[in-house]
């Protein structure tokens, strides 16, 4: 399992592509995730991050590519061949959702018990034993409850165990969803924007929780994140996506200083602010050193970028399968009205802000809204 680099690879994604109609949401993506590491998947809105998660967890069948998962036992699974529920049950991949999917009418305890369904169902001899109250089931049920208690304690919600999940504040719901995923006994934990909508204190608590999960359980965590402080602060390995393509892959420091990332991900107009924001953070101290060099490049980059951003039809939308290169699509689109019309609908679905909302100040937020309205989106 441990490869030459000494890392214990749990998931290896190779040449993954996902095409919706004419839209290439994920384009030939390859990366690896390792046990005991937090791998962050970042990129602007609509870059295809959630789509990658949906492919890994079996909710989408990828158009192309292979996703190999190796369990601790040495068993290997090709995730693209498993139905969604088996990805969790057999390959031990658990996930959370970008838009929370808690069982809001069930209590916290029940949420965590439902997560242990498979183990419990087996212990109840597929209901029949449980119906007659066999002691075998009772001991397992007690264990499941202990596990739930452990996780509720860990996320600081033990006192509210008997309240409905929908009654919790947002930050607590996020933590509960992570705890629920952990209760399935996963080896790979996929978190889709767990820090979205959290205040700084909650976000900090979340970081601690994730680091603790990684260290205590030697867990591999795959993390989609927009909040740069989370990404830079806790991830061991970052993969950057833009328009479905991988544009960078490496340590947080490497990625942060990668010009391609700065251009595509941070959005050039705001690079200065971003860099200031990053410099303010302890984790980004190193980046600050590289900042002056970047700043000198700014004006040039900015003009280039702006020009590019003016008349590009947003996504690389293709109608013909062989029309792959995105650049070709960009130039052709202007000349071919019929095709432009055909892509209008797709554009709406793909509408993406120019820049990702990382560490916004009110000023930039306002600027972005304006851009979204008038610009490419």
């Amino acid at each position, binding site marked *: 399992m441990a490869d030459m680099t000494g890392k214990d690879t749990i998931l290896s994604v190779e040449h993954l592509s996902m095409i919706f109609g004419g839209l290439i949401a994920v384009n030939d993506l390859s990366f690896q995730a390792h046990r005991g590491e937090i791998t962050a998947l970042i990129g602007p809105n609509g870059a295809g991050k959630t789509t990658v998660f949906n492919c890994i967890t079996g909710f989408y069948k990828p158009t192309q590519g292979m996703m190999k998962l190796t369990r601790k036992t040495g068993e290997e699974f090709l995730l693209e061949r498993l139905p969604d529920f088996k990805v969790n*049950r057999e390959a031990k991949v658990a996930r959370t959702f970008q838009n929370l999917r808690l069982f809001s009418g069930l209590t916290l305890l029940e949420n965590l018990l*439902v997560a242990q369904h498979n183990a419990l169902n087996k212990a109840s001899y597929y209901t029949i034993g*449980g119906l007659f109250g066999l002691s075998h089931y009772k001991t397992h049920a007690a264990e499941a409850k202990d596990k739930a208690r452990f996780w509720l304690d860990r996320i600081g919600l033990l006192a509210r165990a*008997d*309240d409905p999940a929908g009654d919790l504040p947002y930050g607590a719901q996020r933590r509960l969803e992570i705890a629920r995923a952990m209760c399935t006994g996963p080896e790979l934990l996929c978190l889709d924007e767990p820090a979205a909508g959290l205040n700084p204190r909650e976000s900090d608590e979340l970081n601690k929780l994730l680091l603790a999960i990684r260290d205590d359980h030697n867990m591999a965590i795959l993390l989609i994140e927009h909040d740069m402080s989370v990404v830079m602060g806790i991830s061991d390995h970052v993969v950057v996506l833009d328009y479905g393509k991988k544009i960078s892959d490496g340590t947080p420091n490497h990625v942060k200083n990668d010009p391609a990332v700065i251009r595509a991900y941070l959005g050039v107009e705001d690079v200065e602010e971003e860099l200031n924001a990053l410099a303010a953070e302890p984790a980004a101290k190193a980046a600050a050193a590289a900042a002056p060099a970047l700043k000198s490049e700014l004006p040039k980059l900015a003009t280039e970028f702006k020009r590019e951003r003016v008349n590009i039809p947003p996504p690389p939308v293709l109608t013909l399968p062989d029309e792959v290169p995105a650049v070709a699509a960009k130039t052709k689109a202007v000349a071919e009205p019929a095709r432009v019309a055909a892509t209008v609908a797709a554009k709406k679905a793909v509408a993406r802000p120019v820049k990702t909302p990382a560490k916004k100040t009110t000023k930039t937020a306002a600027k972005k809204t304006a851009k979204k309205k008038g610009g490419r989106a």
Partner: protein
Amino acid sequence: MTAQSQTQAPSQGNLFQNAIRDAIYAGIVVFGLFILLIGFKTDQNIKNELILVQRWGLLFSMVAAAMALRFVTTAFIQPALAARKAAKAAAKPAEKHGWLRDNFAKLALIFLVIYPFLMLALTGVNGSLKWVDNFGIQILIYVMLAWGLNIVVGLAGLLDLGYVAFYAVGAYAYALLSSYFGLSFWILLPLAGILAAFWGVILGFPVLRLRGDYLAIVTLAFGEIIRLVLINWTAVTKGTFGVSGIAKATLFGFVEFNAKPDGFAATFGLQMSTVWYKIFLYYLILALCLLTAYVTIRLRRLPIGRAWEALREDEIACRSLGINTTTTKLTAFAIGAMFGGFAGAFFAVRQGFVSPESFVFLESAVILAIVVLGGMGSLGGIAIAAIAMIGGTELLRQMDFMKVIFGPDFTPELYRMLIFGLAMVVVMLYKPRGFVGTREPSDFMHAERKAISGEFTKEGHG
């Protein structure tokens, strides 16, 4: 008008003045509304001529009823409600309900067990027949059906509009297998349940991928298909004539309920009457209901029951947690259908006659209405709703005195759907989640056991 009644502490005289004025307004409105609808009726006379019948009596009794109702509402009910609201607001929200409420289930069970003998004592051997059969058995059949449907709709959140199909499968399974092969009720009862469960799975497969409205429509069609098969497969089912002369149940195969010397009444030295058989049937359906309740309560605390409720809340989340939603849905369909099948077999043995007419869509709708009215997922609420709806129908049927008021061709039970519709609208306005809107969690971490508000509970979308 309500604004007036809300003014702080109106003096008594003022209140009655208001009430009388409101009553007069209501009377005028009702008169204007109903003069054409009820006051005049076009009819044909013997010579096939169109004639206008004037029904002033009926019209004015309606107007009088509306006026009286309005008067009572303004003069008594509204002040009482306001006073209660004020008292509630003043009282500390100490959530300590009385002893009666805590032991409601036990008391209800004791009452149900002694009910036939209570009626026997109160109304005599022949008088009790109506109370045991028309009220007791009839209501309990619907309680059982609604509890069965509750598994599918209330717990798993799968909207099934064709539940009566399983009731039909159970009924015909008993009717046909007993008349063709002479099998006894005690063998056929479980068999009817199994057959219905089997059909539940058959229905489940094609609808697994459907949700919401689509699911509702396909299940509705399934119910109709079963009924049409029963009508048209005349060689086996005798079509619309139905199957008659279905064998009675025996006392567990030992004693038969008949007038022979070795029959039940003779054996136990009782007065010859059909009431003994009815009482036996009453206890049989009571036992079946308790079985349904027991299984539902147990299942809710088992992984499968929790998976049903989770499925109702969010199917995608279920799949992400490794739950096989296909088998989970199928078990819900199968177990719900099984109880429908038991109830069907019981129905056949009670009537001694089955025909497709008993299994029309209206039955499905009534059962679903009971589940919704009672509060999805709540056994107690559903039982109360069944008593209100089915008992209410029976009560209307018994109301002969209405004929005296409204004329001899007034049949009160024809108005039952009108009344139920109105009642449902009112209940849904004031208790949108049914009589019992709270949900009892399946397990607790802490000692204090409290029901949770239904506010967050989803109705299911599949």
